[in-house]
């Protein structure tokens, strides 16, 4: 058994003291002498030609230093680069995405000009003075309409289809020909907004003396951002530094390179002044990426006993007007995860990415996997409902067997480990599933609508071998033992709320036997930290933590050599034991990591040929993704008179492998459930047909407050993984992925007496009321409200 005091313990987070006392430094807290402020002029139209932009009234404002249009940047200053999209699709249509619009705007909120002034207030005043002459063009926001033809978002493409990806495995035609039942359903996964509470914030500065651009940004990916900025702006990468200080949440939305980051950087170089831009929440709703927005058409072939034998699938992903960094990747991830935790060998599918006059969709918590999990978890419930079987039993029937791992899915992923049935059984036992069903039958007799929803999910995370990633999948860590024995850790991942300053210190403290408070974990500054890929897709600890583990091993190997030399022992007879360097079998001879570090620093007592210093930089290339899984159970009561949903019980049993800090893991799951539940019940980004954003503020877009979410009960199982040396699977997205279908399945189950088959999210009271009402009017046999069975 390894020596351990920290890993596995509920250590309070070391990042918290600064956060709870208001002494943290978020980007907007960064103070630099001489800072000026940028404000953007944004399109009020979903689609329009820009006839003319008159900056003169803004430039006449006494506080204004400069103002630029896209034309200025791209023609007068020769800045031609388009924002990057990371993809590996050969025939992807990639229209230019200029950092300020040139000639045409294709969505509400697209920036057409920037104004820079001495104060933030003046910058906004002046931005309002900019006169833009637009010619409105027809817009399209519905991806299915966009698929049919004109109007085109990018006229020159002559299509709104950015890509089509067909896929087939097994023999789906045979499966459908032989099926006892075929269930068809359209499932819409509505557009949602990530809404980190800290809006996008940035401050750029050009140091003329050092010829260096520094961009503080609320980003999840400082290194990738630096690389892309250097390409977009045409400056050598060694003249660019990006810093992500404390970041107020990301959820994937800050895993991106935004036009504003490039514009602000370019302006700072022009003016040689620090330039700050902090978006308003309304701007955030317009111009920060959105998530989901898929229309999925499903056909499920099954036998009478509930075995799913085939799946036909069309995934239409609404990409928005332009590609952001990962826009086209997201719907393809949905295809990859289509079978979920079930053995489905026969699949035929097509993924279609479609441009519309809306903000781009991109990675939002789970990115692609929540969509897949949602439709497959709805599908098993639809099968159960059609066949009159218990949804838990249909799941059990189709699970990939415990004995079948590693299991390669029909879509080509290899799940290294899993035990779906045990986890579901644990969840069912905790909630007393049989008891709940009995209670439900009792309540139904009284006319009360209780629903029980299950979701058994598996997700792909720990992004994840480089070969499978649009932009590298490894990560890095450096450990430096300082002369006094304190330890500096530099991590290539860039956490923003996930607590890795603590988790990483826990790992190092245990493995090197040093007091946790002497460890400093540094991240998010490209001038300090070696290249890393960043924090997203639950990869921070699964990949970055694994790199840390490798660096620990390198340090230990060297420390052993140093100690052995000191003791004139054979290095093979020396080992790390209980956090100390010891001669095997002779505990009287021991040395701490700090002592070895001091010897390494002094340099004169080292074995011949061994370099002074005790530090290591290692990179971890994961051989595969990791696949956390779990079962979520949601119990709701629906008020038949109002359509209101009350969540009366919520249980999540997740399996994310080994728990390094259970407290942090639970926090991640809580937050994830809240976001997924909220998509099920409340959230939706709505554009009208002309491309106007109707949910442009926190008054119209409902992220839940404390009263709107329930108490959650959590439990877990632990199934190991050999994908990384820590034995962990990521947990950042699990809650979001597991919760949405559990909640929707519960509501549909509650409405079963009315024969309701499906209702599209969000399950707002009026939709539920309408479904109930329609069923009452049309008879219970076909009471689906919308998204009716085809």
């Amino acid at each position: 058994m390894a020596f351990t005091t920290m890993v596995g313990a509920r250590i309070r987070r070391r990042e918290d003291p600064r956060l709870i006392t208001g002494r943290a430094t978020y980007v907007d807290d960064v103070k630099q002498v001489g800072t000026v402020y940028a404000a953007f002029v944004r399109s009020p139209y979903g689609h329009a030609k820009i006839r003319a932009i008159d900056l003169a009234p803004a430039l006449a404002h006494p506080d204004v230093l400069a103002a630029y249009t896209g034309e200025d940047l791209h023609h007068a200053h020769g800045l031609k680069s388009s924002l990057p999209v990371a993809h590996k699709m050969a025939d992807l249509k990639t229209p230019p995405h200029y950092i300020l619009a040139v000639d045409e705007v294709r969505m509400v909120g697209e920036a057409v000009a920037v104004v820079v002034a001495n104060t933030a207030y003046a910058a906004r005043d002046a931005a309002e003075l900019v006169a833009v002459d637009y010619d409105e063009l027809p817009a399209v926001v519905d991806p299915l309409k966009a698929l049919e033809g004109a109007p085109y978002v990018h006229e020159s493409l002559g299509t709104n289809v950015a890509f089509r990806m067909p896929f087939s495995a097994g023999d789906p035609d045979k499966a459908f020909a032989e099926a006892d039942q075929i269930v068809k359903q359209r499932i819409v996964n509505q557009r949602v907004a990530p809404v980190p509470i800290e809006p996008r914030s940035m401050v750029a500065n050009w140091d003329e003396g050092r010829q260096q651009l520094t961009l503080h940004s609320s980003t999840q990916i400082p290194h990738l951002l630096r690389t892309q900025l250097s390409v977009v702006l045409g400056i050598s990468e060694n003249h660019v530094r990006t810093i992500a200080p404390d970041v107020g949440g990301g959820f994937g939305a800050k895993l991106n390179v935004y036009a504003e980051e490039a514009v602000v950087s370019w302006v700072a170089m022009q003016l040689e002044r620090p330039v700050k831009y902090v978006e308003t929440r309304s701007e955030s709703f317009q111009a920060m990426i959105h998530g989901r927005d898929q229309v999925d058409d499903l056909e499920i072939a099954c036998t009478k006993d509930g075995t799913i034998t085939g799946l036909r699938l069309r995934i239409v992903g609404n990409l928005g007007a332009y590609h952001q960094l990962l826009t086209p990747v997201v719907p393809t991830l949905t295809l990859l995860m289509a079978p979920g935790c079930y053995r489905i060998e026969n699949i035929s599918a097509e993924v279609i990415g479609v441009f519309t006059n809306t903000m781009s969709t991109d990675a939002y918590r789970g990115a692609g996997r929540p969509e897949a999990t949602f439709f497959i978890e709805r599908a098993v419930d639809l099968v159960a409902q059609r066949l009159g079987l218990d949804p838990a039993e249909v799941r059990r029937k189709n699970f990939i067997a415990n004995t079948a791992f590693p299991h390669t899915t029909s879509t080509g992923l290899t799940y290294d480990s899993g035990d779906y049935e045990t986890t579901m059984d644990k969840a069912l036992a905790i909630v007393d599933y049989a008891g709940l069903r009995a209670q439900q039958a009792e309540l139904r007799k009284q006319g009360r609508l209780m629903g029980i929803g299950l979701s058994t999910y598996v997700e792909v995370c720990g992004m994840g071998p480089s070969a499978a990633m649009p932009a590298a999948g490894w990560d890095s860590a450096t450990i430096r033992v300082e002369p006094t024995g304190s330890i500096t850790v530099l991590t290539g991942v860039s956490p923003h709320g996930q607590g890795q300053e603590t988790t990483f210190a826990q790992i190092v403290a245990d493995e090197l036997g040093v007091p946790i408070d002497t460890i400093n974990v540094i991240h998010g500054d490209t001038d300090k930290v070696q290249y890393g890929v960043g924090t997203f897709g639950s990869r921070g600890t699964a990949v970055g933590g694994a790199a840390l583990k490798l660096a620990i091993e390198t340090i230990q190997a060297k420390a052993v050599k140093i100690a052995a030399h000191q003791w004139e022992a054979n290095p093979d007879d020396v080992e790390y034991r209980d956090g100390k360097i010891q001669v095997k079998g002779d505990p009287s001879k021991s040395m701490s990591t700090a002592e070895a570090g001091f010897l390494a620093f002094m340099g004169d007592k080292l074995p011949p040929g061994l370099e002074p210093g005790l530090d290591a930089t290692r990179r971890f290339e994961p051989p595969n993704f990791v696949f956390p899984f779990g079962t979520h159970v949601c119990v709701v009561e629906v008020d038949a008179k109002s359509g209101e949903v009350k969540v009366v019980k919520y249980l999540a049993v997740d399996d994310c492998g080994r728990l390094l800090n259970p407290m942090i893991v639970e926090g991640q799951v809580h937050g994830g459930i809240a976001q997924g539940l909220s998509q099920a019940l409340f959230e939706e980004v709505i554009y009208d047909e002309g491309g106007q954003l109707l949910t442009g503020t926190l008054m119209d877009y409902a992220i839940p407050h404390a009263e709107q979410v329930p108490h959650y009960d959590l439990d877990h199982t632990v199934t190991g993984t050999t994908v990384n040396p820590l034995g962990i699977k990521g947990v950042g997205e699990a809650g979001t992925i597991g919760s949405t279908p559990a909640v929707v399945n519960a509501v549909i189950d509650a409405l079963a007496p009315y024969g309701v088959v499906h209702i599209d999210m969000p399950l707002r009271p009026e939709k539920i009321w309408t479904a109930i009402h329609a069923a009452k009017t049309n008879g219970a046999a076909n009471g689906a409200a919308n998204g009716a069975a085809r």
Partner: protein
Amino acid sequence: MQIDLTVNGKRTSLDAEPRLLLVHALRDRLGLTGTHVGCDTSSCGACTVLLDGVSVKSCTMFAVQASGHDVTTIEGIGDADELHPMQEAFWTAHGLQCGYCTTGMIVSAVDLLQRNPDPSDDEIRAGLEGNLCRCTGYENIVKAVRAAGKAMRENAPRSSVRDLMSIHPPAEEPPPSGEVIIPPQLQGAST
């Protein structure tokens, strides 16, 4: 125009245009950046401060309206040397992740307990209605407020970060292998 106010117990005056929002006066003119801005519609509560002891959204007030009044920001609630029980409870209960909503949340919760020293969980949830958190799912925030209420009712002394997370803890004997043990210097740190 001239604004005179007392911020975290210190009298301050500043010259500001009439439309300057209190939150910007605090952040940009007085350097108190613990008060955050998360929205432009008074919806999120990240900017919550106490005005004469009562919570207000500082993005919804002009600085001039605070003239002559007492403002307490998160920096005045407590610092690393003397944590407010609410701060310690948020820390212990893991009531925060990114921390961006947290300062406003703590200020609101302090006000909530002033009005209702022993709230039920439902009352805590209702009382925090004006503050949005996107990270925590609120579960641990409710736990934190409950724990802080208990500590405050029992008049627990204020503690310091330095006591709870000492900078140079004494060397420890390693515990028996396999057992998960929290070292004494962090024992208060466990939940």
